């Protein structure tokens, strides 16, 4: 009888171990794209960052950011957001009127049109516009990405009565034509495979795990 119980216990322990090993398939690692037509790789590293590269002929795409795993889903978010914008209001006693400055995050002037209380002004060379007004109710910042012809409008309310220097900074998508912007997108995980759903830019992609470590291992003889 004792032998039988022992055998059953061993069997149970083996089954538990097998199930645990079978289920534990950590997402961390490098995955390569399963495709004859395209090349690609996605990497999830231990510190919670991921990166993606996909290419096919003239077409190249890249993204990177933070990831978390929830059940059989991986939720990804890009570092960059297409609508990232910062508005800074300051007071400059040397100014008569209001000065608007439009830059990208690298400090380069940004082509834009400012609609201030329904009057339209183009910013001047160097992303600057100075108007001899003492205050305004609202400014609409209209930027043009000439490559994708996307127009967006950001409304800035004039909150501080005593501010006269308005700096508007935003992401210059011209610098990121090949970047994919993800915002809490869900990927499916099944075994060693990760499934990217089809969207307006990307086709459905399937990646298979090729390495459990993000580190490049030196080959030894």
């Amino acid at each position, binding site marked *: 009888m004792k032998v039988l119980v022992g055998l059953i216990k061993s069997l149970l322990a083996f089954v538990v171990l097998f199930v645990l090993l079978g289920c534990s398939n950590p997402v961390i690692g490098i995955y390569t794209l399963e495709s004859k037509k395209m090349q690609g790789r996605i990497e999830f590293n231990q510190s919670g960052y991921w990166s993606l590269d996909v290419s096919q002929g*003239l077409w190249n795409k890249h993204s990177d950011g933070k990831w978390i795993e929830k059940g059989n889903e991986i939720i990804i978010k890009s570092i960059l957001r297409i609508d990232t914008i910062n508005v800074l209001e300051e007071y400059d006693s040397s100014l008569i009127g209001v000065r608007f400055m439009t830059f990208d995050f690298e400090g380069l002037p940004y082509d834009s049109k400012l609609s201030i209380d329904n009057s339209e002004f183009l910013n001047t060379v160097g992303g600057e516009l100075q108007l001899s007004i003492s205050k305004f109710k609202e400014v609409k910042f209209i930027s*043009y990405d000439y490559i994708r012809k996307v127009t967006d409008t950001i409304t800035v309310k004039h909150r501080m009565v005593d501010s006269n220097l308005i700096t508007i900074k935003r992401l210059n998508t011209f610098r990121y034509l090949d970047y994919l912007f993800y915002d809490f997108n869900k990927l499916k995980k099944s075994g060693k495979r990760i499934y990217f759903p089809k969207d307006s830019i990307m086709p459905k992609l399937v990646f298979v795990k090729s390495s459990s470590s993000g580190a490049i291992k030196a080959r030894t003889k």
Partner: protein
Amino acid sequence: MNMIKSGANKNGKVLSSGKIDRMTNQVAKLQTQNENLNKVASEVIALDNSKQMYDVKEGAGGTSDNAGKLSYDNQTGNVVINIFNNSTNKFATFAHEAKHAFQFETGKVSLLWSGGGASALADFTDEIEAYQRGQLFGANTGVNIDEGWVKGRGQNMQSGPIDVNTPTNNPLVPGETYGQAILNATMMYRSRGRHPHEVIKQ
């Protein structure tokens, strides 16, 4: 050609209208192929005569269906035709990428400064031309290469055609072309001590 004109074979036997049609089609096909090969020759000569240096490199990587790449080498300033080892028809892969090189030469394609490949000017018409060029050398035989077919390979590009002379329609810079916009951006980046995002043939 003479047989078609006379309507008889070399023994004087009259050819059927079906046979004449088939031969006429064959001749037309060969003439088109000949024209295309002449085009290839003239494009290679244009690349050879260009002040832009074009280089060819073979290396690891790629897949059987994605076996080449055109890139910019920011260390040398050369445009590189990369042929990957996984190519099953290196001649066709070279023909495809050389077409992209000619597109760069003629302002139809811009390249990322970082070496990542093509950028703002790339569109379906560029890729269709390149696949058709590869087809001339035995790749994707019998396939009707069009936008739908290229899309089916996973690429989602702008329809085009877009080249350096295409207006950007940016209301802030009336009359501006893509070429000017890229050069203006390049000048701005350089003036701030930064490398450009992409390069075009100058």
